[in-house]
Structure formats: structure tokens, C-alpha cells
């Protein structure tokens, strides 16, 4: 198939449509505004619905409504807007509604900057909204990878009945790369497959089949039973849905950990260091929830590995998961900047040389 040069935001939006999304609710915010702009033109062409909400709060609640009818629904925003969505995300998780949420991360806290960042890792994988819930959370490192993940994101969301979050950074949305766009998937709401969805129950039908899209369980035992169901889904996802990439880790002395576009900078560093005869490798989680704890522990557990260097554009948020995975077995170092300042290959190389001096 031919490669086309596409901008990240438009490629991701088109991939969502190819994956069967027919409803988009959103609100403009840099650096992802090209996604709603693309959707506003493209959705009508495929018989879908683009609607500009009055706020991100409203947008995620529109997602809640449309997803409850069984449709494939997507919303997108950037950090401050995703903060506003947290209430609705928690309700979607509680009501077990499949949907896809894009966070094209920008610098924070507060209004922060409009440049790329990775500052919402905690918000994405450690909570954000209230209550015990998780989302399948993907951190693509290229536009093609974002497209590929999008093509299975709705299937996973529906299989586990949970929201899927894309933790992409502004670079993914703003850059252009040659990509291969998959064929359109034909999706139709099938009440047999989504017996929980509101598809037209009427009095006289089996009362057990009446749709009640809800996250309230006022009786503590009932809530406990409900959260047990959610937790069982998370346990299943932890078993099946870990995704990661290793790059030249087989004989590595120092293992870099990084996610998203920062991992591409780290990859360059691996090759540069190897050219100097220093054995560096890279471990990149593709899904950051469920986190690939055991694969990372196994990689770093190899006898030749002497240290780990985690690199991020934040204060070291994924670092906590890296440390949990390694559990003190090897020294873990960190390099990164907060806000939107991306580390350069030179900075990372210098940090590696500094670590090596300590050996």
C-alpha cells in the first residue's frame, strides 16, 4: 500500500473514522485543534456526527450519552481540557462505557504552554478522576503507531468495557510523517454484542435487559460488588494488554526508559553511544497502563545491566513505575525537564557518561 505524508492530528482523526468512530464531541485547544477541525469536515462525509461542545465538561458527557447507545465515540483535547474531562471520564469508567479519549499533552501546570509535554502521565495512569478506575492508556511514539493503536482501540474498549486513553504529546499531533492508512472498518451497533446499551427496550421486554447506564450504587455491598467487576476487568487487562518495545537491550550495560516521542530521542542516543562503544539499550512502554512491570524487570534484571536512566519531559512521573518494576535491583537515574523543554541527545549522552563514571 502506498505511503501518504500526513499531519499527526489529521492521521489520528482519520484512523478513528476508519476504526468505526462516528461521533466526535470536542472543544478547541492547542495543540490538537486540527483534530476537531478535521472531524468537522470528515464526519459528515461518512454519515457521522461532529459536534462542538460548549466545554470539555459537556463534550465528555456527550460521549457518555452517545457511547451508552452503543456507538463508537471519540473526544480529544489537550491537558487543561483533559483536566475538565476527568469528572466524565470517571463516570464513563464507573458505568463501564467504551470510548476513546485523546490527550495531546501540552505543558502545565495551569495554562502552562502550548508546546508538547509529558506532564499528564500521573493524571492518565494514576487516576485523574475520582474512584478506583483505570483506562487502557497508550503512548504512541510515531504517527503510524498512533494509527495502528487506533485501529484496535475501540475493540479493546468494548472488550473490557472501559475508556481508552491516548497519552500523546503535541509533537505527535503537529509533525508530519509518511503513513499507511488502513481500510475502513464497517461498524454497526449490535445489541447482541452490547446488551447493556440503550437500543430501544420497551415495557413487556425482559426487565433485566432494560438499559440503565449508571455509576451509582448507594448500597455499599452493591458498590463493592460493582467495583469487583471493574477490578476483574483491570486484572484481565493487566494480563493481556501490556505492550512494549525493546531496542538493543540484549547486551546493554545501561538501559534507557522513555515513552512517546522522547523514546525516539532516546533511540538516537542508543545508536550514538554504541558508535562510541558504550552499550546502551532502550525499553519503551507502548501501553503505559497496564504498565509492563515484569518485562521491564526482566530486561533490567539481565546480569550485564548496571544502571537504568529514565528520560521524560516532566519531573519524573513514569520514573515511579520504572522504580516499582525494578524494585531496587539496579540503580535508577533520571533526566528530564518539566514543562515543554525536550531533552537533547547531547544532554542525555552527557548524563550517560556521568552515570558510567560512577561504575
Amino acid at each position, binding site marked *: 500500500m502506498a505511503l501518504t505524508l500526513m499531519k499527526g492530528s489529521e492521521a489520528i482523526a482519520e484512523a478513528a473514522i476508519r476504526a468505526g468512530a462516528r*461521533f466526535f*464531541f470536542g472543544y478547541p485547544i492547542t495543540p490538537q485543534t486540527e483534530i476537531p477541525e478535521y472531524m468537522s469536515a470528515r464526519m459528515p462525509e461518512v454519515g457521522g*456526527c461532529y*459536534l462542538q*461542545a*460548549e*466545554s470539555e*465538561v*459537556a*463534550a465528555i*458527557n*456527550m*460521549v*457518555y*450519552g*452517545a*457511547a*451508552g*447507545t452503543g*456507538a463508537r*465515540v471519540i473526544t480529544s483535547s489537550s491537558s487543561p481540557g483533559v483536566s475538565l474531562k476527568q*469528572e*466524565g471520564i470517571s*463516570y464513563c469508567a464507573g*458505568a463501564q462505557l467504551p470510548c476513546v479519549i485523546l490527550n495531546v499533552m501540552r505543558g502545565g501546570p495551569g495554562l502552562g504552554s502550548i508546546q508538547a509535554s509529558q506532564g499528564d502521565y500521573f493524571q492518565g495512569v494514576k487516576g485523574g478522576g475520582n474512584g478506583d478506575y483505570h483506562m487502557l492508556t497508550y503512548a504512541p511514539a510515531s504517527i503510524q503507531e498512533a494509527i495502528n493503536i487506533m485501529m484496535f482501540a475501540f475493540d479493546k474498549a468494548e472488550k473490557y468495557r472501559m475508556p481508552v486513553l491516548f497519552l500523546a504529546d503535541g509533537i505527535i499531533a503537529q509533525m508530519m510523517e509518511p503513513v499507511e492508512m488502513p481500510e475502513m472498518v464497517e461498524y454497526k451497533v449490535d445489541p447482541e454484542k452490547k446488551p447493556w446499551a*440503550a*437500543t*430501544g*427496550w*420497551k*415495557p*413487556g*421486554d425482559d*426487565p433485566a435487559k*432494560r*438499559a*440503565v*447506564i*449508571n*455509576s*451509582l450504587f*448507594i448500597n455499599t455491598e452493591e458498590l463493592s460488588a460493582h467495583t469487583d467487576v471493574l477490578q476483574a476487568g483491570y486484572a484481565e487487562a493487566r494480563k493481556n494488554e501490556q505492550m512494549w518495545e525493546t531496542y538493543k537491550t540484549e547486551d546493554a550495560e545501561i538501559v534507557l526508559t522513555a515513552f512517546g516521542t522522547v523514546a525516539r530521542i532516546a533511540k538516537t542516543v542508543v545508536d550514538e553511544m554504541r558508535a562510541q562503544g558504550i552499550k546502551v539499550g532502550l525499553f519503551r512502554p507502548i501501553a503505559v497502563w497496564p504498565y509492563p512491570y515484569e518485562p521491564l524487570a526482566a530486561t533490567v534484571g539481565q546480569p550485564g545491566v548496571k544502571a537504568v536512566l529514565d528520560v521524560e519531559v516532566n519531573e519524573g512521573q513514569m520514573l515511579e513505575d520504572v522504580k516499582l518494576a525494578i524494585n531496587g535491583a539496579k540503580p535508577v537515574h533520571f533526566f528530564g525537564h518539566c514543562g515543554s523543554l525536550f531533552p537533547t541527545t547531547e544532554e542525555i549522552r552527557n548524563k550517560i557518561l556521568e552515570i558510567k563514571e560512577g561504575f
Partner: protein
Amino acid sequence: MAVVFEKTNLLTDKQFHYCPGCNHGIIHRLVAEALDELHLDGNVVGVAPVGCSVFAYDYFNCDMFEAAHGRAPAVATGIKRAKPDTLVFTYQGDGDLASIGTAEIVHAAHRGEKISTIFVNNAIYGMTGGQMAPTTLIGQRTTTSPNGRDEAWCGAPIKMSEMLAAVPDSYYIERCAVNNNANIIKTKKAIKKAFQYQLEGKGFCMVEVLSTCPTNWGLSPVEALKWLEDNMIPYYPLGVYKDKGATK
């Protein structure tokens, strides 16, 4: 024996949890009867609020959604856009609609969203134990306005029907009450009209229903009705605030 009255099958058999004398029960029945009379054959979805009517999903015998506090119009928007042939209604209290959910209700009206909203105004936050609402009357004592609502400190009660009637693409807005039989019949007519307009593909419709909260007003059910007549109706006049479908 001839059957002269039957409970509508648009209500489940679940017993209401409402306090004695609370008007929520009457309003539920009117909504359900209006739906029943329209023979929608399953093409109806309701959205329950956060407030005393939070369990409305247990009472209305159709597909139901429970929305976050104030977000029912946004949830209803998502449902209606996904299922344009389905009648979608929200049922909301005054804390839900006139306070935390003002953005959602104003913009549902602004988009001319083809949904019907039943707005139950009891001038207080019932569920959380009687705090002041934006609709609480001047001088009215609540647990958070122990000396009575002071206009200089927190403004005058908000009039949602008047406000939403001013939004260009709202279609039909009426304020009713269920304090006596005549008004109950009028309220049911208004609710049915709002539903009918929606089925005809017209824009946003809202029926505000003045309602009692004897428990948090600290009054008996009978006294509460009198208080509503003496205090609420004069400030919140009943009537049609907008009807784009009215024949001139």
C-alpha cells in the same frame, strides 16, 4: 367491573423513595403517563439527574441514563445525536439545572437540541439536606442561609424559564405547578406538548414545574403547598414563556 384507572406501564413497580407530600412523585407520574400516551414503542430514553430524583432510572420504565450533577443536557445531547428518532428527556432539579448545570442547559437550548427537559424547581437542595439553591427565595431560611437569603450578599433567585426563553433556538418553555388538580392537568398537557414538539423534530423544550420539599422547608405537606402558592408562584409566575409552535 370496568377499569377506570390504571398505573401506566412507563413506571416500574419499584416504590418511590420520596418523602410524604413531595411533588416529585406526582411529576414522575405525569411524565410517565405522557410518554405512555404517545405510544413510543421503546423509542424513549430518559436521563436522571443528581438530586432527590437520582433514582429516577429505577422508576421510569424505559432505557435510562444516570448523569453527573448538572450534566444531563449534555448526556441527552449525546444520546439524541446518536439516536435522532428516539424521544430523549432529562429530569432535573434546580440545584442540578440552575446551578452546577447552567452551562449544559443553556447550550442545549442554544443549539436547539431536540430534547425535552422537565425542570423541578423546589427552591432548595433537597437531597443534600436543604441548602440554599440559586432559586431559593429572598428571606427563605435554609441550612446555608440560616438567617434567610440575603439579596445583597448572594443575589436574587434566578428565573430559568425567563432566561431560557431568551435563547434564540429554544422552542417551547412553560412554567407549571402541581399544587392543585387544575394545575396538575395543565402540567401534564405541557409535558406532553414538549414531547410532541420533540417528536415533530422541533427544538429545545422545557417545562419548569414548581414543586414542594416539605421535609427541608420544615412544613407539613399541606402547609408546603400553601407556601408554594403564597411565595413561589408570585415570584415564579406560571405560564407559557415561549411557544414557537403556537398558532397565532
